[in-house]
């Protein structure tokens, strides 16, 4: 019944999660879901995107500063959609204890005159043992 489309791909040194879902404006949806590890939820409300990380693991989630030097390239035919404004692309970085490092990007695209938002999430999960958890 879940309308999200999810893809998990092995990547050198880690795993890439990709997911696409559609959400009503004002509703909360799971942009990224890694069972037993974490869920990244988004709530698009007018021109604001609220992002929450739900810890599904036994170790602490440690928020890290977002990366600003990576680029996200979007391409596609202009259909019945309005490109998201700069505030609609968000970097999320966090560690799961000392076990994993998660670098995620969430982008949104509003569909005009339908009250719907398309949400694309992508995360690179890599082993992370460089830092000690802050408990």
């Amino acid at each position, binding site marked *: 019944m879940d309308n999200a489309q999810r893809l998990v791909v092995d990547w050198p040194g880690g795993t890439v999660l990709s997911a696409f879902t559609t959400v009503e404006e004002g509703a909360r949806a799971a942009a990224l879901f890694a069972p037993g590890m974490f869920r990244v939820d988004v709530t698009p409300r007018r021109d604001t995107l609220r992002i929450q990380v*739900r810890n599904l693991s036994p170790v602490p989630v440690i928020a890290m500063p977002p990366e600003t030097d990576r680029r996200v390239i979007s391409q596609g035919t202009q259909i019945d959609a309005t490109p998201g404004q700069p505030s609609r692309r968000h970097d999320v970085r966090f560690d799961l204890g000392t076990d994993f490092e998660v670098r995620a990007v969430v982008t949104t695209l509003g569909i005009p005159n339908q009250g719907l938002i398309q949400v694309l999430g992508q995360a690179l999960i890599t082993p992370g043992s460089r830092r000690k958890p802050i408990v």
Partner: protein
Amino acid sequence: MHEIALRVGNDRVEETLDWLLLVAPLGVHELERGEETELRVRGPHGDLPTREQVVNTAGEALIEVAERDVPDDWQARRLHDYQPVRIADRLVIRPAWAPAPDDDAIDLILAESGFGTGEHVTTRACLEAILELEPGGPFADLGCGSGVLAVLAAKLGWSPVVALDNDEKAVAATLANAAANGVELDARTADLMTESPPVAPTVVANIPAPVHLEIAGRLDVLPRILIATALRIDNVDPVAAAYAQCGMLERARRVEGTWVVLTLAPA
């Protein structure tokens, strides 16, 4: 379109969402009702979990479940979900499509502009701080964004109101919001890292810490009141010290999570 609405205690929301989000075709609307939260899931009949599945899965967390048909028209559904943003029980910030408040609260219309809905904790704290002041005289909004602070000041009676931002889109949004609320103000672009701020007895500065530090060094005429925000717990003290050095002393400090709003006045 059909809707299933679950009521759960606020302390059971996240565990309920752990399964509900995975079966909700278009997400879950969360509406807080005191100590309970209503979680609304909607979609075509065949795409929704059945009432029985909801009851069985929610278990003891469930207080009540209800089903209803909701309008197919998304604008009607949007009104169905609308919850006004109330600040200090005196101000309602709403989009233009939402109904005006039905009491004597100040009605502030905020168009969608990419600068938020006025709900950010620092914006809320600034709005509350402005509402506590006695309106009157010139007002300056530094880093105006959507212009919500400047528009409120103009509605309350400050005049003239100047709104500055280094982003042309912010200036355009501020002018649009001023027009939507029927108030006049002077909005324009400015680089506060190099330009001196305008002289006004009441100043609100919703700007990053490095800009605060610049401004503190170039306040030619001290305002009677300066509300400084967009500051975090880890960078507020150097900013407060810089303002103190130019004669603006801290009179109040509001902490909202990791965000801080300073109210400053001359010694």
